[in-house]
């Protein structure tokens, strides 16, 4: 448990994806640790999400919804990855990234872990609003907003890590050496050799080609994973559980994610 937490913590601190670790086109993220981490942390967010059904659902089955939400959150991320991984790998290899199949998988799992960790850390906020709110459209909007924030952090993590993996080390500079130089100038604080965070920009501009490659790979991944993920989320509904409907593991197949989003917004504005 302790090592597990330390590993996740190291990933968040950027120690697993530092420029010096990615030079060989390898990504040192052990799957046997990070795959369970993605499951557990995703489940934690799902758990907070599922409270809503217990507190508002008059039909029996609120507890089932809690279990369903807890299972579905990590399933959403990992199933989407399972479906898109082959195409993600093929496109990144075509564009010319140095990442092999295993490295691609590890990198994406790393990004998912960052994503679900941020989501789980927002869980208490979600839980609090769940306890104090009965409005279904508001809860949907809040979930979308919180997951969007978490997703954004995950995306930035992925983009920056990709750049590190594609570009040579020198673009990032050596943090310790630069910090020392700063201290000698008298500008920096003593005893603070700062780490390079996982979201940090390179200190020097990347070579044009590396910059373009990282951006192209990222864009393709973003579109593929995003579209499949949105539809996968739609397929796995209900996550929150409408108070008016009886519990079911999955809903009837209908419509698409984008239509539903528009409808919920109009519900929220029209009084729900």
């Amino acid at each position, binding site marked *: 448990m302790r090592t597990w937490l330390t590993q996740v*913590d190291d990933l*968040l*601190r*950027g120690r697993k994806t530092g420029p010096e670790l990615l030079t060989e086109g390898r990504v040192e993220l052990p799957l046997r640790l990070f795959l369970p981490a993605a499951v557990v942390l995703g489940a934690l967010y799902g758990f907070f999400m599922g409270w809503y059904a217990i507190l508002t659902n008059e039909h029996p089955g609120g507890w089932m919804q809690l279990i369903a939400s807890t299972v579905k959150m990590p399933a959403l991320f990992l199933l989407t990855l399972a479906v898109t991984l082959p195409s993600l790998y093929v496109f990144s290899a075509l564009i010319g990234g140095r990442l092999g199949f295993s490295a691609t998988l590890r990198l994406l799992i790393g990004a998912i872990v*960052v994503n679900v*960790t*941020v989501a*789980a*850390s*927002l*869980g*208490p*906020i979600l839980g*609090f*609003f769940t*306890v*104090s*709110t*009965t*409005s279904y459209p*508001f809860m949907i909007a809040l979930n979308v907003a919180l997951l969007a924030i978490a997703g954004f*952090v995950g995306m930035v*993590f992925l983009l920056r890590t990709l750049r590190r993996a594609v570009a040579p080390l020198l673009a990032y500079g050596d943090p310790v050496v630069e910090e020392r130089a700063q201290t000698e100038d008298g500008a*920096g*604080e003593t005893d*603070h050799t*700062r*780490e*390079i*965070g*996982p*979201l*940090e920009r390179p200190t020097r501009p990347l070579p044009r080609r590396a910059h373009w490659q990282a951006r192209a790979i990222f864009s393709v991944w973003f579109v593929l994973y995003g579209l499949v993920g949105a539809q996968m989320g739609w397929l796995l509904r209900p996550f929150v559980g409408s108070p008016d409907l009886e519990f079911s593991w999955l809903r009837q197949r209908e419509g698409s994610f984008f239509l539903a989003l528009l409808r919920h917004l109009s519900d*929220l*504005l*029209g*009084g*729900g």
Partner: protein
Amino acid sequence: MRVTLTHTDDLLHGIGRFDPSRRADRPWWWLPAMVLCFSSLYGAFMGSFEFDSLERFWQILFSAVKVPLLLLVTSAICLPAFVVFNTVLGLRRDLREAIQAVFAGQAGLSVALASLGPITRVWYSSVASYRGAQLFNIAMFAAAALAGHLVMLRYYRPLIRRHGAHRIMLYSWLTMYAFVGVQFGWTLRPFIGSRDMAVTFFREDAFTNAYVFVLHLILGH
């Protein structure tokens, strides 16, 4: 008592054991304890509207519990996200100082609130309207929030000099705290206690949503 007041004075001036530029050498619970004491003092003043019977005494007690509850529980709800965001921005080494800044801000807010308490009491004595009492309290909270922000900024300035990303964290914290705090304040109503309603800890409609309420108010539903 004297020691407490000296420490409070240090916090307000940002000197001694509360000097933002030095590493803190004081027990960690000082700042939360200050939040607890001073905000509960203001809560007591706040609940003293229409204090004319023994039953109304309960409102004083409830409000004295609720104001510190509001500040501290809101922080507790937002802290996990604050820690994780600090970590991914590469600011983990300054985390202790960042959390200290957050609590110093709230201690500043609480001290400012407590100092405004007597004015609130005088307002209650001179203006009988409930709506007036509400608006006056909002003004007091706004003034105290400004004071708290100044204290927090004092602690954040050295951090921002060290790394610009601390600025993002400062504003993320304020946004998150306000977002959760508004809803929590709404849930904990009544703080003042209308004279037409019985004294209760929670209102019957406590578990509704402040934002949805305001949205409907604006749209006129």
